[in-house]
């Protein structure tokens, strides 16, 4: 299940929903806006409506093909977020922890290179666009060229 939204989310609520069916394992990752040593006050996330959902659904489908999963939840916020706010949740429900852990990490590594969002940081010297990191491409590549 993919949600692209402005509003904040509740990790506990999402985990309770995923585990309600009696699944054995739920692994989650939550990403927050870092304050970069108190120099960042806010982050604005722009996205490409339509392509965002399409790419996240594609990543979710890859994870289902590769591991034995009960359910995947990806929630990604957009808009202006303050330092400390949550940006993204990846939650994976599976019968066993190996599948849940691996799929959760895979989804985050892929999301970092494929999800069409762009971040703009606000700091003491003004606003600047964040640049993509080559280490994100390297992390995604280590999963191989998947299905």
């Amino acid at each position, binding site marked *: 299940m993919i949600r692209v939204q402005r509003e904040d989310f509740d990790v506990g609520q999402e985990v309770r929903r995923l585990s309600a069916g009696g699944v054995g394992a739920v692994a989650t990752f939550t*990403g927050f806006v870092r304050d970069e040593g108190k120099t960042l006050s806010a982050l604005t*996330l*722009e*996205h*490409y409506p*339509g*392509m965002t959902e*399409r*790419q996240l659904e594609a990543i979710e489908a890859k994870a289902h093909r590769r591991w034995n999963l009960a359910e995947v939840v990806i929630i*990604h916020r957009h808009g202006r977020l303050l330092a400390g706010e949550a*940006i*993204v949740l990846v939650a994976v429900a599976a019968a066993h922890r190996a599948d849940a852990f691996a799929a959760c990490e895979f989804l*985050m590594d892929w*999301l*970092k*290179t*494929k*999800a*069409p*969002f*762009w*971040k*703009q940081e606000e700091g003491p010297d003004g606003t600047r*666009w*964040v*640049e*993509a990191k080559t280490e994100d491409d390297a992390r995604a590549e280590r999963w191989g060229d998947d299905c």
Partner: protein
Amino acid sequence: MRVLWFAWLRTKVGVGEETIDPPQGVATVADLVEWLKGRSPGHAAALGDMTMVRAAVNQDFAQADHPVRTGDEIAFFPPVTGG
């Protein structure tokens, strides 16, 4: 066809979206980039260094040799920074 611009490309071009009617010879993303650069100094600045730019055709990532056709939605943006 429609062209969408995101992030600093939109700032340089001055618009987020435009409808265009390129000539017959524009058959690929690479052809389109060359044609778009001639539209304005802002367009030329946005597409000046294609190592800093990524493209999508109909909401899928596309390489330079990807075909472009009437009715397509083409987007240009920086490498993504989500998550």
